């Protein structure tokens, strides 16, 4: 990737530019935050049963909370790869939208290699190896699988033109990522950071092979 600076950074000038160290710190912060949400409920569950075994149902509720909170965060992370909220199509525009998407797919296909093209055809996501890890780029967000393949950062980011066909939205993000990877992560909003397996369970089934492939790429280094 080139060392140019993404011009969109000017719109978020107050943010510190993302780098390897910042990513590690944010990952640790998310882990701490998850622990802070989870451990009290687990402790309450244990204490309640210890005090009064008849409170086991309440303990079970506390454990459900402890399980559900990280799952909800992971769902929020997985949602970044979902398509943007659909707009009501104008009359007679369905055929034009189909043509536009076909044209956009041609351009996106020209930007990536054969394997990435295949993966996009099946999952809607484009894998892209970067210095910070392996990215999976979608229409309105991207996942970054960190080296080793265990942790995933989920970023919400999109092109500012809602009239673009889906493949063009992906191409916008891919080009911006290639221009300036740390800048891309700086402009994007971090929605979740945590275990890859947790995000995988919350992804639509058709996208999961892309995350598996990115995990393998990240493990290979």
């Amino acid at each position, binding site marked *: *990737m*080139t060392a*140019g600076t*993404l*011009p*969109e950074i000017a*719109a*978020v000038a107050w943010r510190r530019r993302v780098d390897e160290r910042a990513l590690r710190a944010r990952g640790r912060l998310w882990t701490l935050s998850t622990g802070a949400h989870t451990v009290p409920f687990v402790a309450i569950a244990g204490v309640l049963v210890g005090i009064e075994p008849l409170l086991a149902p309440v303990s079970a509720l506390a454990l459900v909370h402890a399980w559900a909170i990280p799952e909800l965060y992971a769902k929020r992370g997985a949602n*970044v790869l979902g398509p943007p909220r659909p707009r009501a199509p104008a009359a007679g525009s369905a055929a*034009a939208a189909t*043509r*536009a*998407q*076909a*044209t*956009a*797919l*041609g*351009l996106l296909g020209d*930007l*990536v*290699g054969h394997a990435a093209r295949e993966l996009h055809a099946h999952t809607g996501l484009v894998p*892209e*190896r*970067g210095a910070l890890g392996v990215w999976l780029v979608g229409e*309105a*967000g991207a996942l970054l699988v960190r080296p080793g393949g265990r942790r995933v950062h989920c*970023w*919400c*980011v*999109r*092109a*500012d*033109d809602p*009239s*673009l*066909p889906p*493949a*063009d939205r992906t*191409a*916008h*993000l891919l*080009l*911006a990522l*290639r*221009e300036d990877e740390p800048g*891309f992560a700086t*402009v*994007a*909003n971090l929605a979740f950071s945590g275990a890859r397996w947790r995000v995988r369970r919350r992804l639509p089934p058709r996208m999961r092979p892309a995350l598996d492939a990115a995990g393998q790429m990240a493990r290979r280094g």
Partner: protein
Amino acid sequence: MARLIRMDRTGHTTLAEWSAADESSIAAAAAAFREQLDLGYYAVVTQGEGRAEQVRELPPDAELVILRRPIAGG
């Protein structure tokens, strides 16, 4: 022929084509290029898989220059 394309609602639109040997075609492409930048587009030249560079002047030796909209955190 080198091309200047803009990603838009149609997929993409070819705004100009030029040849390095044809000065007038380069001038026309450069004018179209500036016009799009003034409209808020960013210009990107791909440099092989995994690399791209933003450009602020039309590079006459590039094969393909792509115009994109800004991105923002969602």
